[in-house]
């Protein structure tokens, strides 16, 4: 099993300890030794070893069986009569992947009274939309949705299935993966096809300190949840045509073992979800008092942005948990992110580090947030923010 080290072949070049992210390789006389309790068998050492002294034992790939699986599937998420925006983002990304493979993009539309949304997915780039419309699917339940997705995958054999890394997507995808005994990669921020037609799934780990490329070589479909807002949807082409197929799947109420008794929205009026917004205005401890949140709120309003908070201010109850950005809250990746009075602890950065443009304002010039900021301003938010608001108003008035 696992790692096989041929000590006789080892030349003691010391490249492998440098490549190891897990401190599992040490110098041992003129050669190296491995601490298998630390080793996760990622294969970094195998790749750098010039002497072929390291071998990671892996499974055998059944190429014939794998070749039967075709097409890129997107599990879309209807919500309140529209589609969550990741659905369009993933159809665009799926289009790119499918074109590389010379295969089709198929969008899954599961819910109740959702058929009207199918055309927009075709316009976005899907070749086909599979619609499963049933009253029993009106509300998300793990059991009903798992049955629906598994019933579609099993006979049709897609090569790739992508889900949004939303609360429901991250609840559903592992359930489907376990039922079909498949691998699943969580919260991807990058997707590509390699020379062997495999899906290369890139995701952050260790709070965003490292990125990992993950493959699923032995089984199909290859499945991943994908972070919303990372990929940008292309403009929709209303002249595109495609096939819309209605599929009936039998789901009995007795198969659903959880009952949703009540739904409570904490997103108060005028508040935008941080995960879906193009711009997020996030405040931290530096905002000092809940009344001071009026400033970021005003900025957010001007920009149609979501108002977010770091863990300390959400813990204080100044903003609802739905607005918390960071590891214990939401993971966001907007076009523009304002970090106001946020020091930038790794737990926070893990939740917003992939934002396109990061603007940070903080009194402390040594705050870690400046390390990832595209535009950092060292100073007092209460002096600067009103000026930024005034300047944006001026610019917007000129438009």
């Amino acid at each position: 099993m696992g790692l096989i080290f041929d000590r006789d072949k080892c030349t003691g070049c010391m490249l492998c300890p440098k490549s190891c992210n897990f401190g599992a390789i040490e110098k041992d006389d003129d050669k190296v030794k491995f601490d298998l309790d630390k080793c996760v068998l990622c294969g970094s050492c195998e790749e750098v070893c010039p002497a072929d002294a390291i071998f990671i034992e892996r499974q055998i790939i059944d190429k014939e069986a794998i070749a039967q699986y075709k097409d890129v599937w997107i599990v879309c998420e209807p919500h309140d009569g529209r589609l969550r925006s990741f659905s369009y983002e993933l159809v665009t990304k799926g289009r790119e992947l499918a074109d590389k493979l010379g295969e089709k993009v198929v969008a899954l539309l599961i819910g109740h009274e959702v058929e009207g949304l199918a055309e927009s997915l075709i316009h976005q780039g899907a070749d086909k939309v599979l619609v499963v419309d049933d009253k029993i699917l009106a509300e998300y339940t793990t059991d009903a949705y798992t049955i629906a997705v598994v019933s579609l995958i099993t006979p049709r054999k897609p090569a790739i299935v992508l889900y949004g890394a939303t609360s429901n997507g991250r609840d559903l995808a592992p359930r489907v993966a376990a039922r079909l005994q498949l691998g699943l990669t969580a919260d991807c921020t990058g997707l590509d096809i390699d020379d062997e037609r495999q899906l290369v799934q890139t995701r952050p780990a260790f709070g965003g300190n490292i990125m990992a490329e993950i493959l699923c070589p032995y089984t199909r479909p290859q499945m991943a949840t994908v972070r919303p807002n990372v990929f940008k949807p292309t403009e929709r082409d209303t002249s595109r045509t495609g096939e819309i197929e209605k599929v009936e799947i039998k789901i009995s109420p007795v198969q659903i073992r959880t009952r949703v008794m009540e739904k409570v929205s904490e997103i108060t009026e005028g508040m935008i979800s941080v995960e879906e917004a193009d711009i997020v205005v996030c405040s931290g401890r530096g905002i000092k008092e809940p009344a001071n949140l009026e400033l970021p709120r005003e900025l957010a309003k001007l920009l149609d942005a979501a108002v977010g908070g770091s863990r300390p201010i959400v813990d204080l109850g100044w903003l609802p948990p739905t607005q918390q950005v960071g590891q214990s809250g939401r993971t966001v990746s907007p076009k523009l992110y304002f970090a106001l009075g946020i020091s930038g602890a790794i737990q926070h950065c893990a939740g917003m580090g992939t934002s396109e443009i990061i603007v940070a304002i903080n009194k402390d010039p040594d705050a870690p947030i400046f390390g990832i900021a595209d535009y950092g301003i060292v100073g007092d938010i209460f002096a600067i923010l009103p000026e930024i608001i005034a300047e944006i108003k001026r610019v917007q008035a000129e438009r």
Partner: protein
Amino acid sequence: MKIIVLVKQVPEVADVKVNPETGTLIRDGVPSILNPFDELAVEEAIRLKEKYEGEVTVITMGPPQAVDVLYKAMAMGTDKAIHMTDRIFAGADTWVTALTLAEQIKKMEYDIVICGKQAIDGDTAQVGPEIAEILRIPQICYVRKLEIDDNGKHVIAHRENDEGYEVIRAKMPVLLTATKGLNEPRLPNIMGIMKAKKKPLEVVTAATLGVEEDRLGLKGSPTTVRKVFPPPKKAGGIIVEADDPKEVAKKLVEFLLQKGAF
């Protein structure tokens, strides 16, 4: 009530630094801790036991040193522990981790299986639901409030979702994953730490689990890590001192317009 808590030992991610030369993680001297989300699960299990009586068993899969998190959980108040440790378990991805843990759980009696929503090193949030599926029991993920129905047969949980939360009722046995807000975990006291040393701790290996080696660890894993690399560095950001707020605001807005940010 019989409760099983699943925990993981993780590095204190906040202390992990990156070697700027090689781009690899520096883990020397980084303390190992009980995954904070699992700590919520341990606390909730103990509270349920305090209220409804019963027994709480804590399970971890990990290298020999991971036994520390079992002692911590027992010091907090869980009754006994199972340490699944074997070289053969190494390199397991989420599916195989779930399979390994589930095979152990299948041998036990339980009303509730509870774990953290995710581990802070991997952040996948997959192992919990995968275990629920292998055990063929319902799951409620991201629980921030938990009650037991008066009939003693159902749980009523507040499940966090993208807009707020939903109240979900499910019949036990059920698997729950804990998220922030569920409770404030207690600190183990001296008495608890002393008692923990005397509580039963069972070690499970691949052989005692009775699962073929090919289905475990790296060999059984459908996913493989092809490579790990440091995140792409941002091209040096602009950092300015705000001596003149008006001027700084003007420059910033210019920068944002130039980037087409709004």
